[in-house]
């Protein structure tokens, strides 16, 4: 092969669509592995309906030289086992896209695909049954066509199959290799090839992680010394519970699937009283149920970390789709005034770091700390640099040891102090017996309705947030420091905005971005970012602009703020955002 025929894949988006539960989505996993082995950063997206069998299930895969935290605007390759999948996809196809289609059941209707899209249709399922005796092998036939179109050498694919199917025994491996050859033959007959082989990418650092936000948060919990976790299954938070069930016992910790979210949050509170770093995770409906418990932790001054993997609301809403519509509930939910902190990671690395930080903040300021993820950040796999484990610290705040207690003449659990933070002692520590309550109480924890005491206690709790401000996680910034146009986004919007900025730049609009990692309380850096811009687009995944509202309530200059909203259940896409901003800027 000569240098001129070499092609580097810079950025390719693949969609695999089939019936949920028939194994077709493994095609996406196999392609992801092959592309990753060639040195590309891989991002995979799940779009599975909330049921296992039946219903169209779509997997998205993006392989790119740059690190990406979202799918691109166009799809270059579609592998589909049903027509519905293609119909859903038509408007997203790149002009020269390749469509590999199993027409065993329904032939491709004329005129559905745009003119320049290349269609390679064959009855994979029927071929699989006829030649290999099992419908399942349709997937391996399709892999062959897909890898041909991506320009991955046939032998690399065979080698990948050997690695993947070896453990299932020689018979299954053999059948899959036969299916693959069948696919290669088909590709030959139909004249499907990339025209050249792609080559290995170079320059990517070794040892990158392939990890989801949920897995990263679970890992951060363990690294940060979390040793008690209670949860109740709910999409898209379940992987945190499941990952920790697998890992935490080896670290001497306890994981418990509770009977409901009321139990999980109160179990975490009980564990915290016994001095163990505790967390629970759920999604919107569970957060709604936990409001009383979270407010109680705020009142009674109990350290608690709560992960909200947000999904489409309201109520049971769109249970498997991304949205960022619990931000108001986290910032303002619950009865009464109580201190709370809301942290917003923007990628899996952030999920790790901020979970560690949340555990520290919860104990230092003895209050609930939310970690706000969203479905896309929670569940999609991204390629990222390994976490900096050496940077992990454990700060238990004003926790009293038995020795410290012994040297004190008196211990008041809710003692007034300049920073609002009282020293605390946990059950089991000699000399530190105390009363902890969500009722208003005096410094000893005895219920009190005295107006003077009440006012001071309210102020003491509020003071904790002021004291915390200086240490709350700062946001990440990128872009042209001289740009007058600002962008703000959190969660999965962060990665999408990074890419939208490139498209804006290409369209002649220069921007800079702030990803606030602390959304509540609103930090000065966020307010200053806004006043340093002429206009700031706050990009978020909800219908009412909750993030913009929180920032405005925290003092953000609303005259400069503009909302960019999405609430149709689809992930944020860089092109849509760039287009909308360019349009609004040219008015």
């Amino acid at each position, binding site marked *: 092969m000569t240098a001129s025929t070499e092609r580097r894949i810079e950025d390719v988006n693949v969609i695999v669509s089939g019936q949920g539960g028939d194994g077709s989505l493994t095609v996406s996993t196999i392609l992801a592995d092959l592309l990753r082995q060639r040195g590309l950063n891989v991002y995979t997206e799940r779009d599975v309906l909330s049921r296992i069998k039946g219903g169209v299930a779509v997997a998205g895969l993006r392989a790119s030289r740059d690190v990406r935290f979202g799918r691109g605007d166009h799809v270059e390759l579609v592998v589909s086992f049903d027509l519905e999948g293609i119909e859903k996809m038509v408007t997203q196809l790149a002009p020269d896209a390749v469509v590999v289609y199993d027409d065993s059941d329904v032939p491709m209707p004329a005129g559905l695909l745009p003119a320049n899209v290349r269609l390679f249709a064959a009855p994979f399922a029927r071929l699989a049954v006829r030649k290999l005796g099992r419908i399942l092998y349709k997937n391996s036939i399709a892999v062959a066509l897909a890898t041909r179109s991506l320009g991955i050498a046939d032998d690399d694919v065979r080698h990948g199959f050997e690695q993947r199917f070896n453990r299932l025994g020689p018979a299954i491996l053999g059948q899959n290799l036969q299916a693959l050859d069948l696919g290669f033959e088909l590709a030959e007959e139909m004249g499907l090839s990339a025209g050249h082989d792609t080559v290995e990418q170079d320059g990517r650092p070794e040892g990158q992680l392939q990890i989801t936000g949920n897995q990263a948060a679970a890992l951060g919990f363990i690294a940060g010394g979390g040793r*008690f976790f209670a949860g109740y299954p709910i999409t898209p938070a379940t992987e945190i519970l499941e990952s920790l069930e697998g890992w935490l016992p080896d670290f001497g910790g306890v994981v418990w699937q509770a009977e409901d979210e009321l139990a999980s949050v109160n179990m975490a509170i009980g564990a915290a009283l*016994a001095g163990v770093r505790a967390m629970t995770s759920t999604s919107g409906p569970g957060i709604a149920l936990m409001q009383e418990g979270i407010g109680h932790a705020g009142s009674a001054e109990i350290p608690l970390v709560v992960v909200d993997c947000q999904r489409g609301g309201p109520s049971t809403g769109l249970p498997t789709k991304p949205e960022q519509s619990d931000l108001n509930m986290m910032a303002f939910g619950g009865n009464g005034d109580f201190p709370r902190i809301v942290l917003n990671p923007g990628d899996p690395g952030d999920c790790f770091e901020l979970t560690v930080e949340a555990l520290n903040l919860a104990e230092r300021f003895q209050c609930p700390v939310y970690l706000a993820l969203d479905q896309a950040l929670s569940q999609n796999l991204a390629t990222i640099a390994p976490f900096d484990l050496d940077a992990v610290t454990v700060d238990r705040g004003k926790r009293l040891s038995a020795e410290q207690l012994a040297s004190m003449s008196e211990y008041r659990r809710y003692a007034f102090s300049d920073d609002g933070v009282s020293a605390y002692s946990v059950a089991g520590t000699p000399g530190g017996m105390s*009363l902890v309550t969500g009722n208003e109480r005096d410094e000893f924890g005895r219920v009190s309705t005295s107006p003077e005491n009440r006012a001071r206690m309210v102020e003491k709790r509020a003071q904790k947030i002021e004291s915390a401000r200086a240490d709350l996680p700062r946001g990440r910034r990128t872009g042209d420091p001289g740009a007058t146009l600002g962008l703000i986004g959190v969660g999965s919007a962060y990665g999408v905005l990074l890419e939208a900025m490139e498209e804006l730049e290409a369209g002649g609009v220069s921007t800079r971005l702030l990803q606030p990692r602390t959304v509540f309380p609103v930090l000065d850096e966020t307010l200053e970012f806004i006043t340093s811009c002429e206009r700031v687009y706050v990009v978020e995944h909800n219908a009412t602009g909750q993030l913009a509202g929180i920032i405005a309530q925290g003092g953000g200059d609303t005259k400069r703020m503009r909302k960019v909203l999405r609430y149709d259940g689809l992930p944020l896409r860089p092109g849509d955002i760039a287009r909308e901003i360019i349009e609004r800027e040219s008015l």
Partner: protein
Amino acid sequence: MTETFPLAEPIWCAGCGHFSVLSALDAAFDRLDVPRHEAMVLAGIGCSGTIQNHVTAYGYHALHGRVLPAAAGAKLANPSLTVIAAGGDGDGLAIGGGHLLHAFRTNPGITYIMMNNGTYGLTKGQASPSSQLGFHGATEGRAADPIMLGLSLPGTTFLARGYSGDAAQLATLTDAAIRHSQAGKGFAFLDVISPCVAYNDRYHNWRARLCDLDTVDGYDPRDRTAAFSLAAALEAEGKKPTGLVYEGEGLALEAALGAAPADANIDPAANMPAVRELMDSFRG
């Protein structure tokens, strides 16, 4: 000695059954030599939910109905603690009733004392799930019996019933319940008939309706079926058994989960090698 919180004066009405529960519990810690810093008293919300204010221990006032999950969380986090949950019948049978089922089922090593007065004392006398038929507001639906519920579940390991009017029996049962949990056998449930003199004063009425199991010839608290039959037969006569109703063998949840004492080493230096190994499993 560090001065910690001064015990509060009880807010209870003179003659309230809850006083007896408090005396039995406070004395049990001494009788069983439980160091006070290793004891936790978690209480629900209600008149009953103030009991922790009068005991030297780590006291906690849980949310209404949530005392069981909080207590189980504390025990799983530090199995060496002696964990007592206490609360009313409204707290434990109405708003928190779901958790009672799961405590029987999963058997965490905590002692739960239900201070059962058949009414909502604190909110001034509304009907509760254990109100007797005829109690105002309870004209529909028959009283729920938490011991019958416990007997119906195969995970249950300890059931006893005391009466505020019988201090000696209550002391014995409180000790036995705490010992059961301390021995790693799991969830000990003690129902205490603890009349509310303000809204449901039934001292006169209860004494004749209680059947002390110590006086029943050949009663075997290890026989769940017989225990259920007798309780059901007594119920048909408007009576209830008191004493040790059932004690079975069981493995406490914390033991089943292999829960370690609080705070396995979380210092980053000690923690990080294994974390690094776990992280490395995500390398592509």
